[in-house]
């Protein structure tokens, strides 16, 4: 049975939703941007008019305004985008039970059925495109092919509001002339490495001498060559609403540069509150605690530590993170952003090997405290109860990482 896979990408998702909700502003160049005062001041998405005038995703707000005078800058409304993302998925699920999210605005859908050809896929894609346009008021571009990689290439091929079919039997004419950087997983660094080997297009990559690719790029080289030849057999993983959680983490760009250990402690406690609360909410304990930092000159470092007893107690997570930080990263001040995550998760109800010399009575008390705090926050909000250490920095205390800083990245190899 021939596979028919769609990749559906909502065009300039955040900006399209904002334009839909802002009839007065949609005729001007518009960008959805983070808050410069919170130092999240970059362009997250722009409408077609803004793109036309050179505004690019990731630009600083001031840069975007300079590039495009008269640019309308609006703040993001993640709750609204999540709502739209859910509605998009509901539409896709009417066509297939195998729908895999790739971020908020992209999905793969496997619509293969016995007797269902790639042309039927095109019809299906057009129907989805029209429905999204009339029901939700935003546009999508759809790629249709027999594998996920080409389907994604197809959705990027023609935008907005378009369907592109990459026929499995003669895809070479269509995509081998495209630059290698169009391929999924070929970022700026890989592009440079490929260019060094005189590999400029996807076709060059497909025909390259395999041992040389492996030598230059390791096993990723083999993978990319397989992608370029359409040998991708990865199934569309039906991601149910609760995908298998492998780690729980949060990071935040702080409103000001972190320059002292006290400030760093304060942020780690705040992040640990969020990570701990989310682990408890989902019934997990974690054994491996990792911290990451980004310095003011944008270098990123990370390290991790495995602890003896899995935990979801906020103060334990925070203490491990702070100790790790104090040992490793003090020399990197000032810091722009810090992150904290827990991996090696196990179920909270699972039996646990106890340590004879550990103070279990104290841990049980801490767990009770955490669950009481969670209850209070659930009823009255995040700011109602806070740790004393966080109050030392009021600007940091105002951040609510659990609700505001949870992002939705999904890796291609997730699952």
């Amino acid at each position: 049975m021939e596979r028919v896979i769609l990749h559906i990408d909502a065009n300039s998702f955040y900006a399209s939703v904002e334009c839909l909700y802002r009839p007065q502003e949609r005729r001007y160049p518009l960008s959805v941007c983070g808050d410069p005062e919170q130092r999240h001041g970059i362009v997250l998405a722009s409408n077609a008019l803004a793109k036309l005038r050179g505004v690019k995703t990731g630009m600083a707000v001031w840069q975007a305004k300079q590039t495009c005078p008269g640019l309308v800058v609006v703040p993001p409304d993640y709750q609204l985008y999540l709502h739209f993302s859910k509605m998009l998925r509901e539409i896709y699920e009417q066509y297939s039970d195998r729908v895999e999210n790739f971020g908020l605005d992209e999905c793969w859908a496997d619509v293969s059925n016995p007797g269902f050809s790639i042309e039927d896929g095109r019809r299906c894609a057009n129907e989805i495109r029209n429905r999204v346009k009339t029901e939700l008021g935003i546009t999508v571009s759809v790629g249709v092919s027999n594998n996920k990689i080409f389907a994604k290439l197809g959705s990027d091929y023609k935008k907005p509001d378009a369907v592109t079919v990459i026929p499995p039997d003669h895809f070479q004419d269509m995509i081998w002339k495209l630059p290698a950087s169009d391929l999924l997983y070929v970022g700026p660094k890989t592009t440079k490495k490929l260019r060094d080997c005189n590999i400029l297009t996807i076709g060059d990559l497909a025909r390259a001498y395999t041992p040389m690719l492996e030598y230059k790029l390791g096993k990723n080289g083999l993978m990319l060559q397989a992608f370029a030849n359409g040998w991708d057999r990865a199934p569309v993983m039906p991601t149910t609403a609760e995908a298998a959680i492998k780690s729980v983490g949060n990071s935040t760009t702080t409103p000001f540069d972190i320059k002292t250990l006290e400030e760093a402690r304060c942020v780690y406690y705040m992040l640990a509150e969020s990570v701990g609360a989310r682990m408890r909410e989902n019934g997990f304990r974690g054994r491996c605690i990792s911290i990451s930092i980004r310095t003011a000159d944008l270098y990123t470092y990370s390290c991790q530590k495995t602890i003896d007893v899995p935990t979801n107690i906020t103060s334990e997570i925070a203490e491990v993170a702070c100790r790790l930080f104090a040992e490793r990263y003090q020399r990197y001040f000032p810091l722009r952003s810090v992150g904290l995550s827990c991996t090696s998760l196990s179920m909270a109800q699972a039996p646990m090997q106890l340590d004879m010399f550990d103070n279990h009575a104290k841990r049980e008390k801490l767990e009770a405290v955490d669950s009481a705090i969670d209850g209070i926050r659930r009823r009255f909000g995040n700011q109602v109860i806070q740790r004393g250490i966080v109050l030392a920095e009021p600007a940091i205390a105002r951040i609510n990482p659990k609700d505001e800083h949870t992002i939705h990245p999904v890796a291609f190899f997730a699952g």
Partner: protein
Amino acid sequence: MYCDEMRPNENKVYVSVIAHHRLDGEIVPLRFKAEDGPAQHIVRVLEWCPSHSLKAGGQGMRYTCVLDNGNTIYLFHDRKLWFHEK
């Protein structure tokens, strides 16, 4: 009255609604009232389907309603809010 989900603009009128929540889970509006306007009775709902409003800016379940004054309007149910186009 204002809530976080509201995106007011000059073409959009938020209204309070009295509706029939049917056994099958469908919601059918019966009457609505803008904050500073009179109550409007809906004589008939001709159809409802998910749609968007380019004029008022928004998206949701769109009810095509015939009012007792003979006019037909689109009433939108966007998440927890109701609005119609001006």
